[in-house]
């Protein structure tokens, strides 16, 4: 059985290897670009310049960083569990790259068309938490372990709303095949019918990526980098690479599933460069939003994070799936079904925002200002102190 790769007929296995090699080398470049982009974007938000010295406009900064990381000594603590410690980066790294298999970049531009693409991506993506826990446990460091346990709890909690939100979209799109989902959005992207799942997806994505405000497992000011405390050099950079690769792939997924991928608004007829540009722009917008959130918001606490997932996101995503099911089972005329889906999902989104405002943003009394008229009374010591 032979496959067609850029017009050449080659063996299936050689074809797979070529495609994977292409993806890995492409990703390394993309990750470098993302790191540079993040530093520049965050610097602009903070009225700084970001990297400027290495190459024109600092473009080679990521290359220099990569070289430095590769050249650094790979330290392993004496008390660490050697196998678990050394293997952990691969367990984080490999699943992330496996996710690329199903992602459609453009028309007929995916590594494999999988009928259950969404399920495949979700199943593979949840494997990498094993690597996190291995890193935390193997390091023999209490900060690392604390961070790893936080990461495990967080990943389990946010995996569920993520799955439910994608199932809701899959129901509306009538397919779990990512390519079909994108092609079905030629006229209108799914975000119009399903705004609530998009919101849940975005929030769960932030949590999956351990990005602010959910960067609890790696919280710099609390657990000092979490599971990666003891890692250095090339192993640490593999975690880093995986992190940014995951950022890119989830942004691509969000663009494909909700924003119409390469299909909307140009359709299938336009050429490959246009489609690739569309995918890149949409994924870039999501990535930019993630950077924006990162520079603006403080970090949530672990109990608040869990409460938000289990008490708000998960129930409401179940309701969304149920509502979608009801609408689709009774098969009303197409335009009524569309309006119903959009209305239910929009109402759900408003509800979530209201719940967030109610539960998180408590109104506070302003500080009390005392002027000269109310002279300070000498403070009294409590009974216990006397």
């Amino acid at each position, binding site marked *: 059985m032979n496959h067609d790769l850029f017009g050449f007929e080659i063996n299936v296995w050689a074809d797979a290897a070529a495609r994977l090699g292409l993806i890995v080398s492409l990703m390394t470049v993309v990750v470098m670009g993302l790191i540079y982009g993040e530093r520049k974007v*965050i610097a602009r*938000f*903070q*009225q*700084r310049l970001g990297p400027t010295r290495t190459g024109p406009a600092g473009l080679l900064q990521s290359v220099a960083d990569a070289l430095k990381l590769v050249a650094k000594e790979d330290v392993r603590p004496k008390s660490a569990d050697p196998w678990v410690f050394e293997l952990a980066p691969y367990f984080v790294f490999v699943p992330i790259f496996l996710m690329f298999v199903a992602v459609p970049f453009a028309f007929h531009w995916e590594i494999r068309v999988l009928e259950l693409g969404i399920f495949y991506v979700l199943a593979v993506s949840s494997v990498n938490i094993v690597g996190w826990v291995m890193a935390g446990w193997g390091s023999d460091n*209490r*900060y690392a372990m*604390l961070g790893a346990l*936080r990461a495990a709890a967080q990943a389990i909690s946010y995996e569920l709303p993520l799955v439910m939100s994608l199932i809701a979209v899959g129901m509306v799109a009538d397919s779990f095949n990512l390519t079909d989902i994108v092609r079905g959005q030629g006229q209108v992207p799914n975000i119009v019918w399903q705004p609530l799942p998009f919101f849940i997806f975005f929030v769960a994505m932030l949590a999956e990526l351990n990005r*602010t*405000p959910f*960067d*609890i497992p790696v*919280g*710099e*000011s*609390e*657990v*000092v980098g979490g599971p990666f405390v003891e890692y250095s050099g090339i192993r640490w950079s593999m975690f880093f690479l995986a992190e940014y690769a995951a950022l890119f792939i989830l942004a691509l997924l969000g663009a494909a599933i909700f924003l119409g991928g390469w299909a909307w608004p140009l359709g299938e007829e336009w050429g490959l460069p246009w489609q690739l540009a569309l995918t890149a722009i949409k994924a870039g917008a999501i990535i930019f939003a993630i950077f924006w959130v*990162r*520079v*603006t*918001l*403080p*970090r*949530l*606490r*672990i*109990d*608040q994070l869990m409460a938000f997932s289990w008490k708000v996101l998960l129930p409401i995503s179940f309701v969304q799936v149920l509502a979608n099911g009801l609408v689709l089972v009774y098969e009303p005329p197409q335009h009524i079904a569309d309006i119903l889906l959009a209305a239910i999902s929009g109402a759900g989104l408003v509800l979530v925002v209201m719940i*967030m*405002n109610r539960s*998180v*943003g*408590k109104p*506070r*009394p*302003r*500080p*009390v*200002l*005392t*002027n*000269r008229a*109310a*002279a*300070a*009374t*000498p*403070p*009294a*010591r*409590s009974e*216990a*102190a006397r």
Partner: protein
Amino acid sequence: MTAPFTHEHEFETQDLMINMGPQHPSTHGVFRMVLQIDGEVVRDVIPYIGYMHRGGEKLAETMDFRQGIGWMDRTEYLAQHNAELSYVMAVEALAELEVPERAQWIRMILCELNRLSSHFMFTGAFGTDAGVFGTAFVYSFREREVILDLFEEISGDRLMYAYFRPGGLAWDVPANFERRVAEVLKSTKQGIKDMDGLLTENEIFRARTVDVGTISAADAIDWGCTGPVLRASGVPLDLRRTEPYLYYDQVDFDVVTGTNGDVYDRFVVRVEEMRQSVRIIEQCMERLRPGPFLPDRLPRMLRTPPGEIYLRTEAPRGEYGIYMVSRGGNRPYRLKIRSSCFANLQALRDMTIGSYVADAVVILGSLDIVLCEVDR
């Protein structure tokens, strides 16, 4: 504060001891605390201090009154003018020196500016503790930088000013002082607004800080807390109001108090205090007149008659007191600094027990300690 949840374990569990500091990014210097945690809940905190002890008080006893000023900068490196002020006022009280009016007004302006720069440092560092990726920090430092530039123009140094002298000031302020202060205040007002928008109004920030690390007014008094930490608990004790020094009785300002005594209150009290500082400076600028900045008759080597004094002023972190014993001569026989941070830090254990690990960081940040002042 009670534990967030109590859980009857069906099997034996052991609390985890986790060492935080002295080289931890959010212990604000070389503070060390050992947390005993049960899952994510802090069961006990053991603070360790003393990593920064340099014997500053003893060293200052070997120096004459002019040299000692420099040591006050080194004990409180974020509110240097306020620390110097306590010292020089103690010397002036012992030596019975009259300070010219212009020097007093300039001292007031510089102390309030220093309060602004110190509180900006707090808001920035606290934002980082709460988990903002550097944005609050950079915004705060931008404002603090403007103030430090002014201090540098006046004293010639960005960190260790040593600008106050017993009897007045080292030299007069530059001719463009009034214009420069007006510029600084303009950017400061914008900076305070930025902080409100970035942190005070932020829902996640409130979720993280409201009802966290609460301390009652009675407890705060018992621990000897002063400054914003005490006022956040609702005690309107501000030495500028209760025992006015300099010309604080001639300017109009409000004493800011909180209601709950939690981390959020400690934050907003400081932010509101910054607005009051701006008010005070604006009034001082109107009253500033040309004149001498040192007394006419000042001996080349200042000597004090025997005596002792305890003098305290309201520094940004609370009561900064100087206890000074003189046996005559040109240097103090005994010098003791009453550190506000040291007293405030004692309340840490009470505030932290029963909260989450992430809260421990935020609570420590809300105390706004300067380790140099704690250890001296």
